């Protein structure tokens, strides 16, 4: 009657493809887009170092339809990564206590996202001003 034979159900190997883990998987994968974008910039740095011909070829690549499409996709993925990254931010830091009360995580996400947006805008405006 009291036979003990615990049964362990196997974990599906593709758990990351199912709800509710899909959002997590998408967030982590969008990090790859950040790496690819970094690689594109790094390639520009290397061609700059290799000389004018190499840099011109790099600029030609940037203007090509393939590159424009790639950059549109990368931008979308990076924006998704930014939004979800700041949603995760409050989970990774100690509770913020102000006036004896916990600052709600949503508030931290909001402020951090706005700050990142403001920094990006400032950088964009600065770049446009330098390139004018």
């Amino acid at each position, binding site marked *: 009657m009291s036979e003990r034979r615990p049964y*362990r159900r196997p974990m599906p190997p593709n758990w990351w493809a199912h709800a509710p883990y899909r959002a997590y998987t998408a967030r982590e994968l969008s990090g790859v887009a950040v790496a690819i974008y970094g690689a594109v910039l790094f390639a520009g740095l290397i061609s700059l170092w290799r000389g004018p011909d190499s840099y011109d070829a790099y600029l030609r690549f940037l203007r090509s339809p393939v590159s424009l499409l790639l950059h549109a996709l990368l931008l979308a993925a990076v924006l998704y990564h930014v939004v979800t990254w700041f949603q995760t931010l409050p*989970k*990774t830091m100690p509770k913020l206590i102000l006036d004896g009360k916990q600052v709600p995580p949503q508030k931290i996400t909001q402020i951090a996202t706005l700050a990142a947006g403001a920094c990006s805008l400032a950088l964009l405006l600065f770049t446009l001003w330098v390139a004018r």
Partner: protein
Amino acid sequence: MPEAAIAEKTVELRILRYRPASDDRPSFGSFEVPYAEDMSVLQALQTVKDTLDGTLSFRWSCRMAVCGSCGMMINGKPRLACNTFLRNLPPGPITIEPLNNFPIERDLVVTVGDFVKKIESIYPYIIPKEPKTIADGPYLQTPAQLAAYESFSDCINCMLCYAACPQFGENPDFIGPGAMALLQRYNGDSRDGGRQKRLDTIHGEDGVWSCTAVGICSEVCPKHVDPANAVNQNKTNSAFDFFLRFLRKEGAR
């Protein structure tokens, strides 16, 4: 409305059954119980046990989301059976399984021994910073100091967070969200001095570092404990402790 019309409405429960003495592996059994507007999944299970099959096994106690006994997978999500109401579930059969990621003892009852050991391993009690006698008076705490750990003290050990955690599924030795919430409850307490002792138990892959910040543990928590926060802020603490361990005074622990 005539009473017969109310009694006619029924709901189908698909319950994963496992009887270790006779079954090789778990399989679903189907039960039809009368539906009531105010019925919880726990009450539906009790109706099955009382009227249809007395051998159905499940844990329950308080019926009001305090004891943490009746955690199970309801339509694939880890939830407390007592505060999940039939009226809030989509129409059609309700699938009920034991909590994911735990070995099944029998029907909806899972093994909790490992979880209890994990809780014991993190020194789940206050280790006073400075010992005081009763004559010295109580340990005082400001509202801000209370707020720093209060939510973590709301954990009811229902293990829903473990059932939601794919990394615990992959590595059963991972200390997991629930025990980390309890650890942070004490490490975040201004009266406590056991921080170093507890940090020493959570380094490495079976400590905090199995966590990849999936975050579903906090979403399924019925008490809004936010265990994901407890795990992830302690990754920082664990990393600092690793790099600053040479600066620590010997015997400080």
